[in-house]
């Protein structure tokens, strides 16, 4: 399996604060990787370096290299918009645009130049199908996305991310604001999506990491303590700090 993401000697500073320390991590393509760790450990910061969301935070300084499909993403010749098309992101709170369901999905493809109505229809349907939302909304595509339930809105956001055909989908606590049934639907969806996409998720829910991911990375104080097969990490971690954290004995 190819490593689609290669992180080498990565250090990130928010002004004086050293938020990520010497991160070396490879993520194979078409897998689900979970980042776990206590608040402030750097897991979300690392996730955001993967589509340069940290660029928007002033005072951020990055050293080292992040490569996606072999190319550095912090080079001067990199178009951030193009990068974010390849590396989609879903956030903790569903954030649909105040537009119709259809227009939410068509937004990205239109931005990238797709004008043909038939083609757009196809993309919208395919994206909603992949996000397991098509059957629930196919007859209401003109309705406001804001009329959907929280769980549906989150799947809509996933569909919106998929509409521009990314390679990687980043999920930043994407189910923490959802009820258990919606959470389960998204977890099942993630299992299907990994056939086509590489998924990296940050989760505070360790049992979700255990259920959903193939690999888990444990972060502490801006460092990667342990990265391993999820089954190994949760059944027989190598590092005592990992064991303490996953057993709920951290502190």
């Amino acid at each position: 399996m190819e490593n689609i993401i290669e992180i080498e000697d990565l250090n990130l500073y928010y002004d004086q604060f050293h938020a990520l320390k010497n991160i070396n991590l490879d993520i194979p393509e078409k897998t689900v990787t979970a980042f776990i760790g206590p608040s402030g450990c750097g897991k979300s910061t690392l996730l955001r370096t993967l589509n340069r969301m940290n660029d928007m935070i002033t005072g951020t300084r990055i050293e080292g290299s992040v490569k996606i499909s072999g190319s550095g993403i912090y080079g001067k010749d990199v178009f951030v918009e193009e990068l974010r098309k390849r590396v989609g992101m879903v956030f903790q709170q569903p954030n649909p645009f105040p537009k119709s369901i259809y227009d939410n999905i068509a937004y990205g493809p239109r931005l990238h130049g797709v004008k043909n109505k038939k083609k757009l229809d196809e993309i919208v349907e395919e994206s909603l199908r992949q996000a397991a939302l098509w059957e629930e909304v196919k007859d209401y595509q003109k309705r406001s996305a804001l009329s959907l339930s929280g769980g549906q809105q989150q799947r809509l956001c996933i569909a919106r991310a998929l509409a521009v055909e990314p390679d990687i989908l980043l999920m930043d606590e994407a189910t923490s604001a959802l009820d258990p049934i919606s959470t389960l639907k998204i977890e099942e969806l993630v299992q299907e999506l990994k056939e086509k996409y590489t998924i990296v998720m940050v989760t505070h829910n360790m049992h979700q990491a255990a259920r959903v991911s193939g690999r888990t990375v444990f972060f502490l104080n801006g460092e990667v303590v342990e990265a391993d097969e999820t089954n190994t990490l949760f059944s027989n971690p190598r590092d005592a700090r990992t064991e303490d954290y996953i057993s709920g004995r951290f502190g």
Partner: protein
Amino acid sequence: MIRRKELDNDLEQLRSLLVKMGEHVVEALDGAVTSLKSLDCVKAQEIIHADAKLNLMEEEIMDIGSRLIVTQQPVAKDLRRILVAFKISSDLERMGDLALDVAKATLRLQGEKLIKPLIDIPQMSSIVKVMIEEAITSYLDENTDLAYKMAQDDDQVDQLYSQILTELYGHMRNNPDSLPQALLLTLVGRYIERIGDHATNIGESAVYLVTGKRPDLNQ
């Protein structure tokens, strides 16, 4: 390290139940072999009656362990502690049944005289009792060296068992009237040898608890 009060208390309870089960098995084996040596049927009956307690303790371990899995969602070593408690309690319960079988042999021989004074069977039983104690200690202290040492004890038990078989086959050949009792005594040897195997299983569980890997000490 933060203590998880309910989980830790219940894990401690699992440990103490296993210790109690271990003590019970040692007493049962000791009592059963003593009853056989002196053909003391009253003693044998006591052993048989006491077995129900062991079964109850196994059930209690199953109940506590499954409740912990459901309510506390343990992982890593916490989970292994529970899995190991299930496995060890099942081994101990089986060991109790085998001790009970030895006691039943005493009842079968009621009114008879032993064809020979029992020497090797009590000796085998002494080694097995030590093995049970070692097994429980290796689990309690998470002492893998002790667990591996038990494999050597088990070899000694196997050797004695084979000696018993040879001797009893001799009796059967030379004195066909002794056949039913000799056959019964070979079974007793077999029961005690099996108790030893279960003790090494417990040693394996101790190694699994510590390392997450399963060795085979029964080779």
